[in-house]
């Protein structure tokens, strides 16, 4: 099997092979992705879940003891007052970055291979951010007043210090978590609808139905949806760069040798993506095996991921080298010492672990054989995860443990409580991930379907097309659904949206392939219909044009929201520091505009992202849990493998017989007249 897959790797001579192996049809993709969620819980899942849960309870114990006893149970002391917790914070935030890279940046670069892994990677982002937020959350001392980190009006007239990088962290990481969640949820929406339509129990139908918001795969909805997705990607890309840049500024704005380096922001971002990809790889190697997704998550996907790890690992190596060179070049004895101390001081062991794991080990990926060997990938990904943890540890601890005053030099080692907290955070991460793969489709089915060759409306099918035609249903004459017919009630929230009254909702015609749908849409558009729609399990490329849809106004909504967010953020900080709560901190002027840029930017992204998501829902009239189309039993498959056109009865051109005939003449498999 390995040879055939390797043969499919990209090469300029053979062109671009398909991303998904065994050329499945749309339905089998749905099946294979939904299967792990719908079948009985496998033993293997429990074997991972229960230990994770045990580790998570360990976190509970460690944190409870910390709250009871105080930070003194950790190994922190002069001169190392900041070590294990912040290392873990940076480590976990970094892990999250690969998810956003895959879902946003690779999307903008049209890297279609991302579709097989983006859902799981995005979920991983959210869980990693949760783990990350635990650490600053628990080390603030009085955790019960942690909300003071946010700018909340209070009777004491106190405001946070917006000139502090730690406050930028609060904004950056929490907004990053929020936007990642929105991005993930928007991506999930069509798949939640799939799970709803496949549900066999009423509980499942109810729960998935609630969260699917009444998604019905309408092309007019897909149209806004795709715009929203693109905008979210465009917002998440600078966001992900900003988050780890801001995390790096926790260190880089200081005057501490080894921390204060201008290259820190991009260097941390590269490192974050590097470690995140390693984690995605570790998880995907396990998941594809456990859930039999070898033909969806192929060696080709691993090949791409290994290349990205090679690139980012080399970038990290470039940063290590540049730091070393500049420390010498600067002529600053403290800088020089800090780096010599890293490589040859008491923590040299950690430094060399870091260099070996992060710079040397990924170089094996120059070889394609290594990039496509599962054991090599698995081992190296874990090695890199270890190395990147050590990178943060080295940066943080080596710069602190020998400070400017040699008499206060010391050696930091963690206590058992700190180690337990780290182990516990892995428990949190894996518990969440287990729940995710158990209850949600872990591959973006709608997106994977778009990369199948037959998803292209201009796909020229060979013999397979004939097979489909052979099995297609005969076109049934227009027939009103009888009162006693197979009408299934769905969970409904009728107060949220209304449709015009009338005896009939309209016609619903099913088409066999995206190509048929595309051509039928052109004809319906040319026939002058206005109140009509097409429905499909995924956005069919070009159908918006074939339907004559105008561009979505969503970008304007987002632009206004983002500008408002940025302006509000800037004004808030200016007001706080010049009039509400003016304090001189670190010798900075009250109005320190450069220090206000991070929070301004974060708030612009937050409001822009909220505008994109809620704007999309508003334009799509969602949530709309009840819709006449849901009365059709055929329509169940709109989230699986069926393609429809619906023409509404209040269209001026609508006629109970001629409209039905038109749809039949377009090659519909079946046409039905739906009640209102």
């Amino acid at each position: 099997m390995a040879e055939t897959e390797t043969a499919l790797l990209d090469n300029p001579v053979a062109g671009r092979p398909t991303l998904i192996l065994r050329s499945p049809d749309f339905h089998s993709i749905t099946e294979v992705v939904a299967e792990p969620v719908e079948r009985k819980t496998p033993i293997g899942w429990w074997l991972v879940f229960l230990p994770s849960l045990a580790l998570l309870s360990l976190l509970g114990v460690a944190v409870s003891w910390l709250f009871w006893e105080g930070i003194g149970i950790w190994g922190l002391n002069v001169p190392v007052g900041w070590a294990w917790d912040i290392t873990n914070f940076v480590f976990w935030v970094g892990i999250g970055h690969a998810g956003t890279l895959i879902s946003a940046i690779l999307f903008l670069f049209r890297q279609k291979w991302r579709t097989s892994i983006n859902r799981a990677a995005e979920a991983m982002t959210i869980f990693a951010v949760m783990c990350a937020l635990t650490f600053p959350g628990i080390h603030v001392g009085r955790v019960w007043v942690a909300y003071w980190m946010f700018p909340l009006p209070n009777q004491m007239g106190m405001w946070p210090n917006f000139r502090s990088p730690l406050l930028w962290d609060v904004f950056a990481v929490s907004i990053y978590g929020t936007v990642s969640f929105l991005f993930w949820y928007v991506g999930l929406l069509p798949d939640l609808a799939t799970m709803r339509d496949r549900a066999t129990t009423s509980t499942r139908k109810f729960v998935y139905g609630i969260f699917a918001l009444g998604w019905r795969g309408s092309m007019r909805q897909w149209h806004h949806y795709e715009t929203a997705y693109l905008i979210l990607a465009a917002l998440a890309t600078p966001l992900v760069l900003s988050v780890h840049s801001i995390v790096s500024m926790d260190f880089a704005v200081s005057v501490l040798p080894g921390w204060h380096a201008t290259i820190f922001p991009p260097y941390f971002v590269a490192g974050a993506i590097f470690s995140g990809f390693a984690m995605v790889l570790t998880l995907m190697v396990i998941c594809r095996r456990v859930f039999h997704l070898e033909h969806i998550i192929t060696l080709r996907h691993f090949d791409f991921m290994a290349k990205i790890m090679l690139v980012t690992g080399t970038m990290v190596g470039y940063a290590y080298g540049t730091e070393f060179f500049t420390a010498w070049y600067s002529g600053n004895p403290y800088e020089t010492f800090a780096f010599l101390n890293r490589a040859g001081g008491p923590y040299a062991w950690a430094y060399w672990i870091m260099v070996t794991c992060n710079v040397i080990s990924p170089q094996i990926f120059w070889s394609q054989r290594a990039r496509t060997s599962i054991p090599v990938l698995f081992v190296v990904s874990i090695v890199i995860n270890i190395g990147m943890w050590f990178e943060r540890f080295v940066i943080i601890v080596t710069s602190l443990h020998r400070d400017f005053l040699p008499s206060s030099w010391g050696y930091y080692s963690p206590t058992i409580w700190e180690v337990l907290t780290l182990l516990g955070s892995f428990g949190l991460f894996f518990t969440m991930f287990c729940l995710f793969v158990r209850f949600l489709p872990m591959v973006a089915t709608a997106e994977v379907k778009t990369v199948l060759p037959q998803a292209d409306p201009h796909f020229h099918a060979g013999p397979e097309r004939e097979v489909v035609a052979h099995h297609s249903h005969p076109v049934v004459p227009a027939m009103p659904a009888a009162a006693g017919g197979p009408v299934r009630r769905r969970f409904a929230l009728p107060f949220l949206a209304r449709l015009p009254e009338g005896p009939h909702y309209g016609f619903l015609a099913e088409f066999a392939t995206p190509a048929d749908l595309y051509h039928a849409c052109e004809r319906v558009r040319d026939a002058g219909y206005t109140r009509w729609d097409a429905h499909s399990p995924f956005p069919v490329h070009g159908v918006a044009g074939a339907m004559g849809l105008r561009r979505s106004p969503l970008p304007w909504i987002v632009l206004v929201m983002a500008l408002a967010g940025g302006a509000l953020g800037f004004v808030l900080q200016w007001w706080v520091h010049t009039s509400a709560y003016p304090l001189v901190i670190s010798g900075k002027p009250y109005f320190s505009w450069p220090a206000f840029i991070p929070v301004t930017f974060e708030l612009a992204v937050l409001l822009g992202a909220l505008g994109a998501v809620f704007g999309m829902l508003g334009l799509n009239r969602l949530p709309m849990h009840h819709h006449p189309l849901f009365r059709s039993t055929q329509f169940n498959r709109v989230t699986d493998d069926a393609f429809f056109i619906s023409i509404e009865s209040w269209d001026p051109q609508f006629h109970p017989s001629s409209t039905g005939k038109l749809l039949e003449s377009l090659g519909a498999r079946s046409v039905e007249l739906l009640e209102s």
Partner: protein
Amino acid sequence: MHPERDRVALRPEQVTIPPGHPWNRLPAIGGAAAVLGIAACAILGAGNPKQFFFSWLVAFLFFLSLALGALFFVLIQYATQGGWGIVLRRLGETVFAMLPVMAALFLPLLLGLGHLYSWSVAGAAEHDALLRWKAPYLNVPFFLIRAVLYFGSWSAIALFYYFGSRGQDETGDPAVSARLRRLAGPSIIVLGLTQSFASIDWIMSLTPHWYSTMFGVYFFAGSFVGFIALLSVVVVAMRGAGLLDTVVSAEHLQDVGKMLFAFTAFWAYIGFSQFFLMWYANLPEETIWYKTRIEGSWLPVSLMLLVGHFVAPFFYLMGRAVKRKGATLAVGGAWLLAMHFLDIYWQVMPTLHPEGIRPSVLDLAALVAVGGCFVGAAGWLVRRQALVPLRDPRLAESLAFENV
């Protein structure tokens, strides 16, 4: 076996400059400009050699950065096996084929090292402990060795890729693509390292006490913006002159526009990070570089960079229609090209004129001289080659490219 590839049939007149076309005069125009510029430099520079060497350095770095940006653009396309940009690749190849020419244009600077780099003056280190410390790196022989190394590796990579691609026009051998792709990764590493150190040698060491770990990345970001800006201007100009107008579509223009947009933001990110971290830490040995640049008449220049190199183009290039129309894209590109020049000027010139910006006729003369050589040589190449890689295996994909 490869139906798409065999379907590509570009007619010669689509991809070459036809005889009698005004673009055939580029070598003559460039040559004339070069002669004029060099003459002006010789006459004016004799009276003010210090200003001449700084002006020449700015002009040299500007065109060098465009060529390096082009090299990166093409290498990354090979490494990622990108498809959309194949029709633009030959233009990038033509620009980076100028790297050996840039080596020749570097030579005049060697006569003025003492004017440019205070560390290179004999005895400079005697009363300067920092320069003594840095002497193992900042000394003239090692500086020259490094320059040879930079130009050697750049020219080697450039010529290897240029002739590899040209050769494929003749043979149509897809193995060429595979070979160039395999070497793209190592070439990028070599390019990244040499470009970083070159920026340290030629720009950062103008103020030898000052240092920034980010500097190489900043220079890279500027170079890439510069090249994409140049690309957008050249492509639109070619289409306007009836060249490539049936090959390069609005889809390609939109992608060029997107890259311009993205890397303008990237440049701002890197530039802001460098400024911000120094501003915040407020260490005199670092802030001195920015202090010069926010005082006197350099402040408006700095603000101009902030607005002109980032804020204005960011909003201008945001929309879709702007990127798809040739005229509007070219306006953005020309503007950013000018801003990239200003960026280089702003990095170099405050060393000569710390008291404020002092534009000189020599700035223009050097720009015309270096630019004349650059355009003339590139024009000479353009006449002798197809304007797209005719038989690249992915050409069909690029021709049919559509933004989703």
